[in-house]
């Protein structure tokens, strides 16, 4: 099957999410099982029909446990994708490929994570020091925020971006969360001035450049386009999907190649747009992985919404804001202000935009780009109505 033949042959027909909170009582396994059953109910499909299971390598709930809990039958396709926040769209994309190629009929993708309750991953010193941590950690580059801070400082130096541009992103996304009752930051307004007054985490990144810490789980159900038409909700067709791991990439500390500011988004985008029958100008709304605000700057360039070095200007005049800008971004509040669950809420929000059920609905949205994290081997999806 070619990428052209793959277009729109599968669709996301069921989505579900748990509450998002700093602390949820149930285990990750219970959250995952519940949300998968809920996603099946949303799709009008009995969980016993699930025969493909796809998730992240960082997912702690394993296929065997999921299948035993939700009462699945024979699972004939299962896969996991690595690199944390880069994985999400690849998880859904591989599930869609499994359905498109006849390996399975009902595929489920999920992510369940109690990141809010757990310790900060970077504080586990026993995993700090192996490759590639030996090159960075002893010097106090301890956290992903420190790694991205250095990339951001370079981006600012090279292209003249300022903190005001990062603020444009944080404020736009927060505004979207303020419309979304499920968002952790639903009730917390943030102004440009609030952003600038926030405490530092790793200069030039402040608190509001960093994503939330969340307990939560999400899932989606993927079936063939034929079957999708019989499901209760309008299908979100998987128009195209791509993954990207560029030459000589070093995850998170992409300092060991010619141009560290040209990351995986560019490789992923080249394949994505080659696979699609439309381009960036035809995207009505975008869900861009936002563990850190500058990842949105890099992704806007990587996915071709603007030229290299122009993403800062692209954020001006509310251009990323719902009801105002040319490209509303992260309309549920994203990882910055809805929930940080390795980007899976970006996928479900993309589906909601295509269904017409978002709390920041882009009127008549027919296409949505969803991306995984820039800075790590990544992935992207184009959803269409």
């Amino acid at each position, binding site marked *: 099957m070619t990428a052209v033949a793959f277009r729109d042959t599968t669709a996301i027909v069921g989505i579900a999410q748990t509450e998002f909170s700093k602390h949820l009582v149930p285990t990750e396994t219970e959250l995952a099982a519940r949300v998968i059953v809920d996603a099946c109910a949303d799709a009008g499909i009995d969980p016993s029909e699930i025969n493909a299971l796809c998730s992240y390598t960082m997912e702690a709930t394993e296929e065997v446990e999921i299948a035993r809990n939700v009462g699945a039958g024979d699972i004939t396709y299962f896969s996991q994708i690595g690199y944390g926040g880069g994985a999400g769209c690849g998880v859904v994309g591989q599930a869609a490929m499994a359905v498109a190629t006849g390996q399975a009929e009902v595929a489920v993708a999920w992510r369940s994570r109690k990141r809010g309750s757990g310790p900060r991953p970077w504080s586990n*010193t026993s995993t700090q020091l192996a*490759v590639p941590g030996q090159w960075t*950690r*002893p010097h106090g580059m301890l956290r992903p*925020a420190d790694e991205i801070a*250095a990339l951001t400082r370079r981006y600012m130096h090279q292209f003249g971006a300022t903190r005001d541009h990062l603020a444009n992103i944080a404020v736009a996304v927060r505004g979207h969360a303020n419309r979304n009752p499920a968002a952790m930051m639903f009730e917390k307004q943030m102004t440009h001035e609030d952003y600038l007054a926030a405490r530092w985490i790793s200069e030039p990144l402040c608190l509001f450049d960093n994503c939330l810490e969340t307990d939560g789980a999400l899932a989606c159900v993927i079936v063939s386009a034929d079957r999708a038409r019989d499901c209760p909700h309008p299908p979100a067709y998987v128009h195209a999907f791509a993954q990207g791991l560029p030459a000589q990439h070093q995850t998170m500390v992409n300092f060991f190649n010619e141009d560290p500011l040209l990351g995986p988004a560019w490789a992923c985008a080249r394949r994505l747009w080659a696979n699609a029958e439309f381009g960036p100008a035809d995207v009505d709304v975008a869900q861009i992985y936002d563990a850190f605000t500058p990842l949105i700057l890099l992704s806007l360039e990587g996915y071709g919404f603007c030229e290299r070095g122009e993403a800062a200007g692209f954020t001006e005049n509310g251009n990323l804001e719902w009801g105002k800008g040319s490209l509303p971004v992260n309309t549920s509040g994203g990882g910055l202000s809805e929930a940080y669950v390795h980007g899976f809420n970006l996928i479900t929000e993309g589906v909601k935009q295509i269904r017409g059920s978002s709390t920041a609905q882009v009127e008549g949205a027919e296409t949505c780009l969803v991306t995984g994290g820039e800075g790590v081997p990544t992935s992207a999806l184009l959803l269409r109505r």
Partner: protein
Amino acid sequence: MANAAAFSGGSVTNLGPSVEGFLTPASDEESQPFWDGTELGQLRVQACAACGRLRLPPRPMCPHCRSTQREWRAVSGRGTVWSYAVPHPPLLPAYAELAPYNVIVVELAEAADIRMVGNLVTGPEGPINEIDPATIVIGEPVEVVFGRLHRADGSSVALPRWVRAGS
């Protein structure tokens, strides 16, 4: 390690008590010669023994000519600041005590695609928070020095650190 005999030794200075609790590098089979080099006050980079291209982090195969013949070469220890970050808490306790401090990314003079992470300090034993981050300039030239970090078990490791060129 064919070139090791040709290396000229530098000096390694003991770091003071301010670094107690710092993380120390865990070397692996590929990287051990790098840390053997810092013990001698030498900054080494892995090189392909067939085509000569430099690479870091080290790995078994040259991505240009696919040779697995490899060696380590001493480099000048000169470079320029490519970027930097200034971490603030929450951090591991030993680092939180010194925050905010600088972490710089140094582009090596010998290979623009090799950038080493380190700290800009006033001398081999200088604390990581001594230099005002506001004075750090992207593009400024720096030189390597070495400071010895002692582990709780009595062992130690020499870390490359960076001072302003000519200082």
